[in-house]
């Protein structure tokens, strides 16, 4: 904007464009009949045209292809034509020896364009429509050539010479510069050393990852974290070794040593490297941005950084590059580089370059659009886990968007704030949003965070709807659903007429919001495809050249015996933008979460499966990992650990590279559950400690993880019969949840407290907790948790003695339908055992009359517990079976049950003994 450099023009003539022009001339030679000379069929001709179209559109790289690459592609589109086309191309290119030849070439080119009045032309003649893609391309080339000064023409001529020479002596040409280097190896050493090494280290690291992947099959689950550390050390060693290797190679300075790095040196050589058109580069950058977001930290940081650096050197005025560098460092958790690049990008571009939601029609006023800078900065702080800073920055963004009346940005900012408030635990917003100008405080400063969040959501939604920002509307629906899921709506005003409110969450609202969010997809189906998808289509087509297509249109002459992949070319990428797919996908993921909370296991599973099968292509790896995590958790709860662990192994391989991985979390969860069930408390404690490390605030605070870690800590203590410690931990957890308004977690913490008191034999104290938990569950519609709270309550009553057996039995009967329908193995077993116990302690019930009423649930429970390897409860079940059988006089059954009882008790003791002997047992 302020730069004194000339404003970016669009187009420059380069050798590659000259050869495309020549090819177009062959495609549509003037005054030729419908199928011009070398082409034998319409299909062939069309295919060539399509190829040319793809050449002008594809955005797979920043550099234009060299002549030999072009020739290779030509070879792939047709064996017969190839020779003729290349010969023609090369001969015409090499015949260009003086500026005048170029002038003639371009004036000939003019002839292939049809006039404005197409009707005057004979039908049979091949004429390029000036307004078609190829026609436009030719016209732009003509224009750019006409604008060239004489020096420019001379430069073009020289570069065409180099372009041809490189291709013709493709092997020997590459050796020449290498020989140059060998004579002054010192320079070569220092100049290429870094690049070489980086490259080699990459390869090594990739190999490392693979190797580790293989190794992890044998590695015990538990030791993952230390292994990773060890692996890191290995990495360093490896790179040191490769360093010396690289150095040796350089010292030899043999041409072959440089062979793999040709790509690198291409960038450095001055000749022959030309950037693609601005449009193509923007498309490339957009694709890369998507890829970074999708793959997260598995995207190679340095390789892409290298390309960006080259791009920046070649096109210093293309500020988008800085934004890509920002993204790249953001997803690799490099705070300082991200901050620096973000600031640099907005300093240069004033926020007016490359944001599709900043419609130019509203106008880039002279103020620039720095509010977008603030929005991005806020989201960056959010990403790095600095909620306070993020909130500060976003508040400033709100203020600035209001000043510049940028409603779009305001809507997005409000959405970002509400996202921040809902994701990150902030106990109180006073002092953060407390200043006088913010729109939030105009309502009054006494609002709780939840109420503020609600207002913000509504506000953002209203704006998004009025501005017709479809994606934002959908995202807001999702946020709203999330809010409805866990929050009870209360009247905003604490005075005035109070409408009668049901103090419950509204599952119907959640459902409604989710449905509305999914409507987005139908909105986009009708829209025309955007720039990227267009370019992406060309790119993918170019990449799949070698696959011949006998498609519906182009069949007649099917090229030799290869598998014809008919739909390769027709299979266009769908016209729905990736971001839309992502949003719709996350609506399914949210559905799964909602059902999880409401307690319907099958529906959770179904929704997760839909997500994993339909949307995993378009969404980011971490979301896919989340879906897998849900599925595996489901397996663990319903099918036992064996299956869960084998599924986990597969998932681990798939998501090895995802950092901050949920998979590690899942593994720890599963390990913890299993060791609790087996009674392997030392291991449980160890896993718990690792969870605690994950929850530490080094990488930003994650409240969910934090609650999870201390919940599991309390459960471990409970399993070790350290009741007062467990109660203390649970208590402080409850306080934290209360402070941060984590209602759902509160319900489960209360239930845990009830369990603690139950196990410590203090049933009187446990009952109020169980009741409180019940009421929380009722409030939030957490049906499954409610069933399990009811069960606990029943068990508590049962422990008061036979007088209360009736009461307990009633409670169990209440909860049983839900537990049988949706509960996991453990819950069901517990219910069965409790049911049997109720019957046994009921004085009016006699075993001998109806033995199956007791034995049947007990048998079922024992089976399920054996799958779970829950030794303690299994032993109890077998004990009860043995007693009952003894009473009934069924001796064989008694003996069998007693043997199994013994087995489980021994297993339990064995685990405990192992704790003493071997502090670090290897798990299978």
């Amino acid at each position: 904007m302020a730069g004194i450099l000339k404003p970016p023009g669009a187009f420059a003539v380069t050798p590659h464009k000259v050869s495309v022009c020549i090819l177009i001339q062959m495609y549509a030679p003037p005054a030729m009949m419908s199928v011009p000379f070398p082409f034998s069929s319409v299909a062939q001709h069309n295919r060539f045209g399509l190829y040319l179209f793809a050449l002008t559109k594809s955005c797979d790289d920043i550099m234009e292809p060299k002549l030999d690459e072009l020739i290779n592609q030509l070879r792939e589109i047709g064996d017969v034509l190839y020779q003729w086309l290349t010969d023609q191309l090369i001969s015409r290119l090499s015949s260009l020896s003086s500026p005048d030849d170029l002038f003639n070439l371009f004036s000939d080119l003019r002839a292939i364009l049809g006039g404005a009045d197409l009707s005057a032309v004979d039908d049979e003649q091949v004429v390029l429509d000036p307004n078609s893609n190829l026609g436009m391309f030719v016209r732009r080339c003509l224009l750019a050539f006409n604008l060239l000064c004489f020096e420019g023409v001379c430069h073009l001529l020289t570069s065409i010479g180099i372009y041809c020479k490189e291709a013709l002596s493709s092997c020997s040409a590459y050796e020449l510069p290498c020989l140059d280097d060998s004579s002054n190896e010192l320079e070569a050493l220092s100049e290429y050393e870094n690049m070489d090494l980086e490259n080699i280290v990459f390869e090594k690291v990739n190999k490392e990852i693979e190797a580790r992947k293989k190794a992890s099959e044998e590695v015990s689950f538990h030791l993952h974290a230390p292994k990773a550390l060890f692996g890191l050390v290995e990495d360093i060693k490896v790179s040191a070794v490769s360093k010396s290797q690289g150095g040796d190679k350089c010292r030899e300075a043999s041409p072959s040593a440089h062979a793999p790095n040709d790509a690198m040196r291409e960038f450095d050589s001055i000749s022959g490297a030309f950037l693609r058109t601005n449009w193509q580069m923007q498309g490339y950058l957009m694709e890369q941005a998507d890829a970074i977001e999708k793959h997260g930290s598995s995207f190679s940081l340095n390789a892409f950084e290298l390309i960006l650096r080259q791009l920046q050197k070649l096109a210093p005025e293309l500020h988008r590059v800085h934004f890509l560098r920002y993204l790249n460092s953001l997803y690799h958790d490099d705070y300082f580089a991200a901050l620096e690049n973000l600031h640099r990008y907005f300093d240069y571009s004033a926020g007016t370059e490359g944001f599709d939601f900043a419609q130019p029609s509203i106008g880039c006023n002279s103020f620039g659009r720095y509010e977008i800078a603030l929005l991005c900065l806020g989201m960056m702080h959010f990403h790095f886990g600095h909620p306070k800073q993020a909130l500060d920055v976003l508040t400033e963004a709100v203020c600035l968007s209001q000043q510049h009346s940028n409603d779009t940005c305001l809507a997005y900012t409000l959405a970002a704030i509400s996202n921040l408030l809902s994701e990150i635990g902030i106990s109180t917003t006073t002092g953060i949003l407390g200043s006088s100008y913010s729109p939030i405080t105009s309502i009054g400063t006494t609002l709780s965070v939840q109420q503020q969040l609600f207002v913000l959501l509504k506000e953002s939604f209203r704006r998004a709807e009025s501005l017709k920002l479809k994606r934002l509307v959908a995202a807001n629906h999702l946020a709203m659903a999330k809010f409805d899921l866990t929050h009870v709506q209360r009247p905003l005003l604490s005075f005035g007429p109070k409408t009668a409110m049901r103090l419950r969450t509204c599952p119907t609202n959640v459902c409604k919001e989710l449905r509305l969010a999914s409507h987005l997809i139908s909105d986009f189906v009708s829209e025309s495809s955007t720039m990227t998808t267009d370019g992406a289509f060309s790119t993918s087509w170019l990449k799949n050249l070698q696959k011949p297509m006998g498609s519906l249109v182009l069949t007649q002459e099917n090229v030799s015996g290869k598998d014809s992949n008919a739909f390769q070319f027709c299979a266009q990428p769908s016209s729905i933008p990736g971001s839309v797919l992502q949003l719709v996908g996350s609506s399914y993921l949210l559905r799964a979460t909602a059902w999880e909370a409401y307690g319907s296991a099958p529906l959770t599973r179904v929704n997760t499966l839909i997500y994993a099968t339909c949307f995993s292509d378009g969404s980011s790896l971490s979301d896919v990992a989340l879906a897998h995590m849900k599925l595996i958790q489901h397996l663990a709860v319903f099918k036992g650990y064996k299956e869960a662990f084998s599924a986990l192994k597969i998932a681990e391989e798939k998501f090895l590279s995802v950092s901050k991985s949920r998979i590690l979390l899942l593994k720890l969860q599963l390990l913890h559950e299993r060791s609790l069930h087996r009674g392997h408390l030392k291991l449980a404690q160890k896993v718990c400690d690792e969870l605690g490390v994950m929850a530490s605030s080094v990488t930003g605070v994650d409240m969910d993880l934090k609650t999870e870690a201390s919940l599991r800590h309390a459960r471990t203590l409970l399993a070790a019969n350290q009741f007062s410690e467990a109660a203390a931990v649970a208590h402080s957890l409850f306080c934290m949840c209360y402070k941060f308004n984590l209602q759902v977690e509160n319900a489960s913490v209360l239930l845990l407290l009830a369990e603690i008191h139950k196990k410590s034999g203090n049933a009187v104290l446990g009952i109020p907790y169980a009741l409180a938990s019940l009421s929380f569950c009722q409030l939030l519609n957490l049906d499954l948790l409610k069933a399990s709270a009811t069960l606990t309550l029943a068990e508590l009553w049962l422990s008061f003695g036979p007088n209360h057996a009736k009461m307990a039995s009633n409670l169990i009967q209440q909860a049983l339908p839900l537990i049988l329908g949706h509960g996991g193995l453990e819950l069901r077993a517990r219910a069965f055992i409790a049911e049997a116990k109720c019957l046994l302690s009921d004085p009016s019930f006699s075993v001998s009359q109806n033995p199956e009423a007791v034995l049947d649930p007990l048998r079922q429970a024992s089976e399920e517990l054996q799958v779970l390897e829950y030794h303690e409860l299994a032993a109890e079940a077998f004990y009860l079976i043995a007693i009952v059988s003894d009473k009934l006089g069924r001796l064989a059954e008694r003996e069998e049950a007693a043997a199994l009882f013994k087995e489980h008790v021994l297993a339990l003791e064995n685990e405990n003994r192992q704790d003493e002997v071997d502090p670090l047992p290897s798990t299978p």
Partner: protein
Amino acid sequence: MSSKESCRNELRSAIRQLSNRCLYSAAQWAAEQLVGIEQDPAKYTPTNTRFQRGSSSIRRRFRTNDITSTPVAGVSYVSTPVMEEDEVEDSDFYLLAKSYFDCREYRRAAHVLRDQTGRRSVFLRCYALYLAGEKRKEEEMIELEGPLGKSNAVNRELISLERELSTSWKNGTVDPFGLYLYGIVLKDKGNENLAHTVLVESVNSYPWNWNAWSELKSLCTSIDILNSLNLNNHWMKDYFLASAYQELRMHNESLTKYEYLQGTFSFSNYIQAQIAKAQYSLREFEQVEVIFEELLRNDPYRVDDMDMYSNVLYAKECFSALSYLAHRVFMTDKYRPESCCIIGNYYSLKGQHEKSVVYFRRALKLDKNYLSAWTLMGHEYVEMKNTPAAIDAYRRAVDINPRDYRAWYGLGQAYEMMHMPLYALHYFRKSVFLQPNDSRLWIAMAQCYETEQLHMLEEAIKCYRRAANCNDSEAIALNQLAKLHHALGRDEEAAFYYKKDLERMEAEEREGPNMVEALIFLATHCRAHGRFEEAEVYCTRLLDYTGPVSFTYLKNL
């Protein structure tokens, strides 16, 4: 230091050798130093030394401590033997080549020397090739500028030059000048480590080539690199160190070095200009002005460094002096970036910011990496309320030299203007990090914290405290500290700072509303704490200022 006479002899032969090799700017620099050596009045007629004497009296007025006569203890200077020319007789080809070179026909010069083997001829051929390549590079840079401003033009001679020079370096047949050329070729190719070694070798064997020293200086980006250089103790090293210190913003060290050098080279314009530069960085504008006046008297057609003088004149708002200076440099050489910058400054002072931008743009067209022009242009855009343009200009300055605290500060200011104080803080932090002793930066940061949007008063207080500690010339910090403490209800602290402010105002004999404010507060404060005598003193002093207000106060007592 070696005697003046030996310096003189060394320089004389050096000038000859340098100009034989067409290293004109180095020769020019050496000649300046040669004339800068104080003449022995016994040998010369008074006309020769007249203006020298007159000028030295002005200079002495500002000399604070006379360290010139004290040599640095423990440093023994090596005397490098003056190099003998290997070709006593100039070959005809050499003469022809040199005349081509002088007419700037570099390729012809190189062609003539193609078969010559004398070291001087070889150097001249290589140097001519290098310059030819540079010239072509400059042209291509404009011709090849792509749609997105790409400028990947390079000097096409570098590869062949490097090959030739590295072979002869390994054979040991290269002379110090060849080493210098090899050094710049290596530097252009980005091989900085080897460039260090080669340049150090060059200056150790031939110390009088200032070009080599300047190249070495530009490679010394940190004090560690500077200290790691293995340099012989020649008096030229002092010049080098002085300018390197300046580059590394160690202004006081640099000043000491220059003042020491002035013992021998008391009339060197170069040293004077460098001292002015250092003083300018230390914000001693008065001294800078005097030095430049003297410089202009001795060397009226000088353009170098005059942009700095114009900055001083700008800061002191000397309209006519600035216009005079602008006129003078314009007549001397209007297509120098410095000239354009001076004219830009003049228009800026006149408030004609559009015109001023035109001239800064011209300066940047002449030199794209002219740092201060980018920054100054940013200032102009700020004045014109075109903040995006200002931000762009500042950002370019910062990307050229990330240690330019003025540009960081400018960025901060621009964002603050747009009511983005939080965003601006990032930039202020950067600038304060680079220049922690500048009270203006701390005050700017404090004001950012103080804005209504942020209202982070504690942080503001911290910044003001830093500002007060580093010699706040405009005396904003103390007053603000007192006010903020007062606003936060910490009256004791407020009284402390008001008292300090009062003392300061007394010392500087300033009066104004701040004085009244301080007195009123102190009077009330003392009365509230029952220290009536003190309160009375303050009230009596108040009487000097505003009758009715103080009167009521006194009455209340």
